[in-house]
């Protein structure tokens, strides 16, 4: 039984990692209905930024964290301006391909700049564990869980209770109508890319002690976080967290109880089954199609 609970806890920790990245997917989708396949690579870039600030320039951890998040927010805005804005409004598949191209590009360039070795930084969470009776949780994983829950709550409140959040939801509903209502659509879109890149940077910094900083880390985690976002229903912020948790728990438990090989496939099998039953994910809207 203790085994099971311990596995469950580490599954939840892993799930929060996926949830944190999935949050970035969901944010951009929620405001602009664009799917950003480069989300994992933005996270990777955030990790490299924080390595540059802390590891190379010797800044304090929290200061480096702040700088990396701000730098990534600017980077996200620039990406939106250069790559996304000209093709916004064209078929979704071409935007998806553009972000896949961006991911390719960022991965290779990061590998060329920072090298292909695993890098790591000293963080306050790198060592130390929390003991609850017989349960053991490492501090680095705990930091991810706490950060994911806080970010989810903050962003949920932002989308539902602020003027800007409402404007973002309106933009995603119907861009032209939003223009007519006086919503600064361009600023909304560029802001959401900044927020999403900042969330990705947060994920990159918090994951630095767990997965290390490497140019391919984004692809691997992004491909797992993507099903999490889909499972939760792409436009739902709590859905991202819950989808992440489901994927994380299933993956960990499958790795523990099922024969070898199931660990990597189980999340996708569950995803396919869920999509067959509920084509818009667990928390997605199930509206009728209108002509």
């Amino acid at each position, binding site marked *: 039984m203790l085994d099971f609970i311990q596995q469950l806890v580490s599954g939840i920790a892993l799930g929060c990692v996926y949830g944190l990245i999935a949050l970035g997917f969901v944010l951009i989708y929620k405001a602009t209905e664009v*799917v950003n396949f480069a989300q994992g690579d933005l996270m990777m870039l955030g990790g490299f930024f924080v390595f540059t600030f802390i590891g190379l320039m010797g800044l304090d951890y929290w200061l480096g964290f702040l700088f990396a998040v701000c730098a990534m927010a600017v980077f996200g805005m620039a990406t939106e301006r250069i790559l996304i804005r000209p093709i916004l409004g*064209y078929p979704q598949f071409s935007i998806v391909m553009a972000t*896949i191209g961006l991911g390719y*590009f*960022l991965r290779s360039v990061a590998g060329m700049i920072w090298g292909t070795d695993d890098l790591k930084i000293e963080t306050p969470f790198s060592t130390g564990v929390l003991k609850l009776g017989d349960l053991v949780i490492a501090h680095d994983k705990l930091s991810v869980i706490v950060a994911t829950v806080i970010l989810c709550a903050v962003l949920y409140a932002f989308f539902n209770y602020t003027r800007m959040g409402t404007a973002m939801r309106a933009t995603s*509903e119907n861009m032209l109508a939003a223009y007519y209502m006086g919503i600064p659509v361009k600023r909304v879109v560029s802001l959401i890319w900044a927020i999403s890149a900042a969330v990705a940077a947060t994920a990159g910094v918090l994951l630095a002690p767990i997965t290390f900083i490497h140019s391919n880390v984004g692809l691997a985690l992004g491909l797992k976080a993507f099903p999490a976002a889909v499972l939760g229903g792409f436009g739902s912020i709590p859905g991202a967290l819950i989808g992440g948790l489901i994927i994380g728990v299933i993956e960990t438990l499958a790795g523990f109880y099922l024969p070898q090989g199931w660990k990597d496939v189980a999340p996708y099998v569950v*995803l396919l089954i869920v*999509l067959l039953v509920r084509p*818009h994910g667990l928390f997605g809207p199930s509206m009728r199609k209108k002509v």
Partner: protein
Amino acid sequence: MRFVFKTDYDQDIRLLKHSGYWWSYGVLLAALIAFPYLVGSYLQSQIVFVFIYAIVGVALIILTGFTGQASLGHAAFLAIGAYTAGFLQSQGISFIVYFPAAAIITGAVGAMVGFPALRLSGIYLVIATIAFAFIVEEILARWESVTHGNEGMRVRTLDFLGQPVPRDGDAFYFLCLLVLVGSILLALNLLRSPTGRAFIAIRDSETAAKSMGIDLAGYKVKSFAISAALTGMAGVLFAHKMSFISPEMFTLLLSIEFIMVIIIGGAFGVHGAVLGAIFIVMVDPFLTALKDDVPVLGASLASSLGMSSEGSGKLRDTMSAIGSAAGLKGAIYGLIIMMFILFEPYGLYGRWLKVKLFFQLFPLYKKATFKRQKTYVKSERNR
């Protein structure tokens, strides 16, 4: 510009619209048949890859370009075709049997993938095909009695009715050419039939197609099955060309490469598949060639512009260092995808059409002819 006076419907759907088509495609075919006798073995081998990629490109154009169903799982269909060929050949079954068998099996799997596609659309479909591809990849790695797992599988030389067809020989080149021409003709004939028109109607508006009495479910499954079967055939040729197959050859990156084929070529016509395949296959040897020449060229250019010999030497070293950096190919791939989507959304075939129209209408060409209609984003949720 030639105007064809059409008097009946048969004339409208004719594949070769006028005598110019006979000439241009006849010359092209003659050139392709003469090719193996003119070029070296390396180039010939690259062209065989172009053919294989082009077959997959045609398959994807039927599915994505004409039915509007996105797929990032075509590497899995290729793998199923390749492994079917490898396994059946090792059981002593002849090419005549396993070539169609691979197409039928892959087509059946494609139809099975098509069923979830009935309820999914847009991004949910993309992720479902990615999930399918991952599952196939894992099955290939684990089903060791058939696929030999991660060790990979040797594929013996193709044996056509007792005649060996070595993978570097002329006969293999002609076989690939034959399959490519066959699949192009199949695609073109499909597209002028009621089935093809139904596909296009589904792409343009599902709701409208449904209200015109088109059986969405049936046609979507058909489109997936045809596309998968063509890819399976390409897989057989791929397996023989590589002579060794293993699961890590058929990853998501290969699926992305296939999508790049139709994006770069232009997804609205079968020409796009061929042009895109040429681009994707040839970009690699082209970059390798550039890697050696560009630094020297850059340095000599710099010194002729008055830079000191020390400075130009440094420039050459920097340029060759960048050129030999490990990730350069990925960066260039990424840039190519982004540039095509931003600046050449109709792909190479679109550019060809634009250039052609420019000369046909010479002083009267206007850019707006090819301007895309930009739509304001409306939520998919209530579309």
